[in-house]
């Protein structure tokens, strides 16, 4: 059984998601050197980073997000293009900061698994519902697609078929399933939650008793701060050392770090990851 990470990256006018994916791949090579990572993209990957990726896969069946700024319309294709029997899908704006061997062992017990409880940078479980009102007020599974796992099997195929249908008709599905706190744009988290609700498999793909696999979610309103700023970078100091250990407010980060704010990635940070992962 082959295992690997898969990311989708499509740059837009403001964010370089391919560069983020390269940083993610470097972090993977530092902490999980034998785990392959593949990328689905039509954007150019700089030559120096190409060796980080197992497979560079063009977006199949045309780019459904060509006219979109928030490009999630191709995400349902991941099932069909993954080169692995077992796949972890991650957002590009993440870093892998520890060995995930034990996480794979947990995940192999599930056909499909979503993180449902995320953490603050201080290691506390996020309790704020600030970003999750659509889920809570519409009784949707409170899942995150920033980090999820699937196997190549029939249940997962059904899920991704349904996800395709929902993404392509998201307004219709939102009217039916999210009348409260109706999202103004197509959200992959909401689409996936609707798919899981329709399939009635929430208890098979989420385990609220597991503290990990999870990720540290750096959205500012999730941090248990009394006064929330627009960017978490305005609130707390960051530090990346030459071994690519990340500290936020002097809390050493581990597991998966979802930095969410592209300004976290500086030239200095990229240089440290390049040096540590031997990218030249």
């Amino acid at each position, binding site marked *: 059984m082959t295992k690997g990470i898969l990311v989708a990256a499509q740059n837009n006018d403001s964010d370089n998601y391919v560069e983020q994916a390269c940083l993610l791949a470097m972090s993977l090579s530092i902490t999980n050197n034998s785990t392959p990572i593949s990328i689905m993209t039509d954007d150019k990957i700089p030559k120096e980073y190409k060796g980080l990726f197992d497979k560079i896969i063009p977006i199949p069946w045309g780019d459904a997000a060509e006219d979109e700024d928030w490009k999630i319309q191709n995400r349902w294709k991941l099932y069909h293009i993954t080169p692995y029997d077992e796949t972890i899908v991650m957002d590009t704006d993440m870093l892998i900061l520890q060995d995930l061997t034990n996480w794979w062992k947990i995940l192999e017990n599930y056909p499909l698994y979503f993180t449902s409880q995320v953490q603050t940078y*201080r290691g506390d479980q996020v309790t704020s519902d600030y970003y999750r009102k659509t889920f809570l007020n519409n009784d949707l599974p409170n899942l995150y697609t920033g980090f999820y796992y699937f196997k190549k099997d029939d249940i997962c195929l059904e899920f991704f078929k349904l996800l395709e249908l929902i993404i392509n008709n998201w307004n219709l599905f939102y009217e039916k399933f999210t009348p409260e706190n109706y999202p103004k744009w197509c959200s992959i988290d909401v689409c996936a939650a609707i798919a899981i609700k329709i399939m009635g498999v929430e208890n098979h793909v989420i385990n609220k008793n597991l503290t990990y696999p999870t990720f540290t979610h750096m959205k500012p309103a999730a941090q248990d*701060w*009394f*006064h929330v700023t627009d960017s978490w970078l305005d*609130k*707390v100091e960051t530090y990346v050392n030459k071994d690519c250990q990340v500290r936020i*407010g*002097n809390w050493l980060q*581990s597991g998966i770090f979802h930095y969410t704010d592209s300004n976290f990635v500086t030239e200095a940070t990229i240089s440290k990851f390049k040096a540590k992962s031997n990218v030249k």
Partner: protein
Amino acid sequence: MNSNGIVVFANNNDKIDYVKQCIDLAKRAKKHLGLPVSVITDSPEYAHDIGSKVFDQIITVRTNLDADLRRFKDGALAEHRSQFKNNNRAKIFSLSPYDNTLLLDSDVIICNDHFKNAFKSNQDFLIYNKSNDLSSFRPQEEFQYVSEASINFYWATCVFFRKTKINEIFFNLVDHIEENFSHYCKVYQLRTNFYRNDFGFSIAIHIMNGFQKGEFAGIMPGKFYHTLDTDLLHKIDGNSLVFLLEKENYLGEYTLAETCDLTVHVMNKFSLMRELDKETYID
């Protein structure tokens, strides 16, 4: 057989008689906990004069003669400035005469036997990460984290430890943090350069845990309560304490509150002194 005991620091300044507070604490410790109390002080002769019968040992330390001046409030309207000689708390590890030590601030009024359970714990280091304000309206932000985006706050007011190698490292670390506090203020985003033992202990715990959540520090048994220096201790009657708690939005007005059998950390040292002076505590 390991020895158990309580140790209290009492470094008097020109306004506050910490030694006298320790005498009351020692009597209450004997009554409720059956434990001896030793005092660490820069006024050993005075401690002998007024407390030789109640203290197990009187241990001499030298304090910083040019200690920082600090503002001490006496209720919502009055305040005094005096020296705050808190610079030797980390030395407790070597100074304590006991194998198992409960370190207390002198302004803790012991009214029950909950602290006994600390000595039964299988953990070597215990501290409170939460204290309950007797007043309900005041924000607790400053006692949850050392600063809003930083690490968890722990109360150095009340700490249990055994003389283990790991704990020796911990107290050496506290000493180091105190010596280099301006650096740690920046690292931990503290908004003050004024050293507080609570900050030193909180930072040391965070480091001992490898800069993450960890299990170095266990939680002291029972609930801990406090009143701020803007409140007044009105009366001590055995295990019953009567407070005047500052009112929200009414400066200088208070709400009466009484506790029974609750150990309370009374931060208004002046009102504590006034109430102790009414008692016939001094032998």
